[in-house]
C-alpha cells in the first residue's frame, strides 16, 4: 500500500454505492469509505467480510449463562443450602431467569466493548474527519493510489457518471490524511 490516497466525494449514497461496486470490480484498492449513516450494501460493494463480533456476543452470553448457573448451584447446594418451599437444593428452573439475565448482560456489554476495541473507539479520542461534512451529508470514497498504472484521469473519467462532487489527493501521515 502506498501513502497516497485519492478521495472521491459524492452527494448521495446511490452514487457512492455504484462507484464503489464499479471500482471494486475493476480491481482498485478501496481503503475505506466515510458516510454520515450506515449505507446498506456498502459492505458487499467494498468486499468486506461479515463481522466476527457475533462470536464475541455468543461466547460472552455463554459465559454469562453457564457462570451464573454454576454460581447459583454453588450458593444453593454447596455454600449455604436453604430449604425454600421444599424445592431441591439445585433447582434448575428457578435458576434459569437470573442466568438468562446475566447472559444478556454479558453478551450485550461484551459485543459493545469488542466493537469499541476492534474499531479503536475510546472516550476522548482525538479525530480529524477526512471531510468536515462526512458526519453531515457527504459520502467519501478513499482509494489507494498504489498501482504504478494508477491513472488519475482514467479514474476521474470512470467516476464522472456518478455525479462526482469533488476529487482530491491526500498523503498518509501519522496524523491522518493530510492535504
Amino acid at each position: 500500500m502506498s501513502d497516497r490516497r485519492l478521495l472521491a466525494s459524492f452527494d448521495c449514497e446511490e452514487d457512492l454505492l455504484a462507484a464503489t461496486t464499479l471500482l471494486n470490480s475493476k480491481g482498485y484498492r478501496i481503503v475505506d469509505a466515510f458516510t454520515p449513516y450506515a449505507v446498506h450494501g456498502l459492505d458487499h460493494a467494498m468486499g468486506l467480510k461479515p463481522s466476527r463480533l457475533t462470536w464475541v456476543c455468543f461466547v460472552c452470553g455463554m459465559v454469562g449463562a453457564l457462570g451464573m448457573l454454576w454460581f447459583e448451584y454453588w450458593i444453593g447446594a454447596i455454600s449455604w443450602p436453604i430449604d425454600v418451599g421444599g424445592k431441591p437444593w439445585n433447582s434448575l428452573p428457578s435458576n434459569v431467569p437470573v442466568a438468562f439475565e446475566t447472559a444478556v448482560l454479558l453478551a450485550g456489554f461484551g459485543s459493545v466493548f469488542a466493537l469499541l476495541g476492534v474499531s479503536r473507539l475510546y472516550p476522548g479520542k482525538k479525530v480529524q474527519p477526512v471531510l468536515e461534512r462526512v458526519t453531515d451529508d457527504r459520502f467519501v470514497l478513499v482509494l489507494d493510489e498504489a498501482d504504478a498504472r494508477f491513472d488519475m484521469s482514467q479514474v476521474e473519467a470512470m467516476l464522472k457518471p456518478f455525479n462526482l462532487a469533488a476529487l482530491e489527493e491526500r498523503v498518509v501521515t501519522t496524523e491522518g490524511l493530510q492535504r
Partner: protein
Amino acid sequence: MAKSKKQRTTPVAPVQAADPLATLRPQLITGGKTPADVTRDICAPLDHSPGALWWSAFSVSMTALIVGTIAVTYQIATGIGTWGLNRTVGWAFDITNFVFWVGIGHAGTLISAVLFLFRQKWRTSVNRSAEAMTLIAVVCAGLFPVIHMGRPWLAFWMFPYPNTRGSLWVNFKSPLLWDVFAISTYLLISAVFWYVGLIPDLATIRDKSKPGWRRRITGFFSLGWNGSARTWHRYETVYMLLAGLATPLVFSVHTIVSMDFATAMIPGWHTTIFPPYFVAGAIFSGLAMVLTLMLIARKVMHLEDYITVLHIEAMCKLMLSMGCIVGLAYGTEFFIAAYSGNPYEQFVFLNRALGPFSWAYWTMVSCNVLIPQLLWLRSLRRNFAFVFLISIVVNIGMWFERFVIIVTSLHRDFLPSSWASYVPTIVEVATLVGSFGLFFSCFLLFCRFMPVIAMAEVKGVLKSPQRDLKHDSARGDAA
C-alpha cells in the same frame, strides 16, 4: 399492449394508474428534507434557549419532583408506617407504581429493538426519544422497591456478594430476586443500546459545533467516531445483536415482574396467564406514553416534518392491537376463574367486578378496552388532539390495571375476619406525583440537550421510495 390500446375507446388509463410508483408507500419524512436539513433541524434546539412552553412544562415537573422528594424524605425518616397499608393489604400503591413505570419502559424497547428486527422504518423518527423514555421510566420504577425497603441505604443487600454474615447469600429461588437482576440488566442494556445509537449523532454535533464546551463534551463521548464504512459495518452488526438481545430481555423483564405475583398463592395472582398478560399490558401502556410524549415533543421541538401523521397512525394501530390483547386477557381471567371451579378464584373475580373496588375495575376496563376501540376509525387515528386524549386515558387505565390486580386480590383474602380496605395516604400520592415529576423533568432535559431524533438513522430512510425505484431501474434490476 398495442392491441389493447386500439380497443380502448376513451383515453383513460392515466399515467398514475399505470405508473408503479403510484402504489408505493408515502414518504416517512415530509418537507423534502436532505441529510443536511436533518442535521440542521435536529441540532437547532441545542443552539437556542428553550421557549416559554418548555420552561412552563419544566417548572411544573420540577415542582412535582420537589413534592415527591419531600414525601420520600419524610417516609424514609419516619418509616413506611406513613403508608395506608395494613395487615391484609401489604402491597398496594408502591408496587402499583413500580409495575406501572416498568411497563412504560417496555414500549421504548419495542420500538427500538423489536421494530428494528421487523425492519419498520418509521421507528427511526421515534426510537431515540422512546429509548430515553425507557431509561427514565426504569429509573422511576427502580426507586419504588428501594423506597419500600424502608432502609434504602441497605439496598446493596439485594446483590450476592461475600459478606460477614456467613456468607449469607440471597435467595435465588425467589422471583423478587430475579426481578433485581431483570431490572438492573434492563436498565444497563437499555442505557448501552441508547448510547451506542447516540455515538454517530454525537460525532455529527461535534463536527458542527464551534470550539467550546459542547465540542469538548461531544468530542469526548463520540469516542473518535469518523463515519468509516468499516466501523459502520461492525456497528450495524452490534446494533443488530443488541436488538436481538433486548427483544427477549424486554419479554423476560415483565414476565419476571408478573412472577412476583404469579408465584404467590393469592387467588387472582396465581395464574399462568400472567406473563403474556403483563407483557402485552406493559407494551400497551408504554405505547400510550410514547404517544403522549411524541405529541408534546412534536409541538414543543417543532418536529412536525419528522413525526408525521404516518408515525402517529402506526403507533395507534400498535396500541389498538395491544389493547385488544389486554382485553382478551381480562376476559380469559374471568373465564378461567369460572371454569376452574375454585371458589376462592371465582370470588376474587366477582369481587373485582362488583365489590368495593368495582369503580377501579370498570375504570380500567373502559380506559383500556372500550375507549381505545375508537382507534379503529382512521379519521380519529389521524386526529392528534383525540390521540393525545386517548393516550392519557390509556395511561390512567393501565395504572388502574395494576392497582386492581394488586389491591382487589389482597383486600378480601381467605378469612373474612381479616378483610380490610385500603386508602392511600397523602405521602403515597405525593410519591407518585414525584415520580411523574422526575420522569417529565428528565425527559424535558433530554429534549433540551440531546438530539431527540436519531439523525444517522433518519438520514438513511430519507430517500423517497420513488428515487429508490428509479435508481433500481437505472441499474436494470427493477422488478
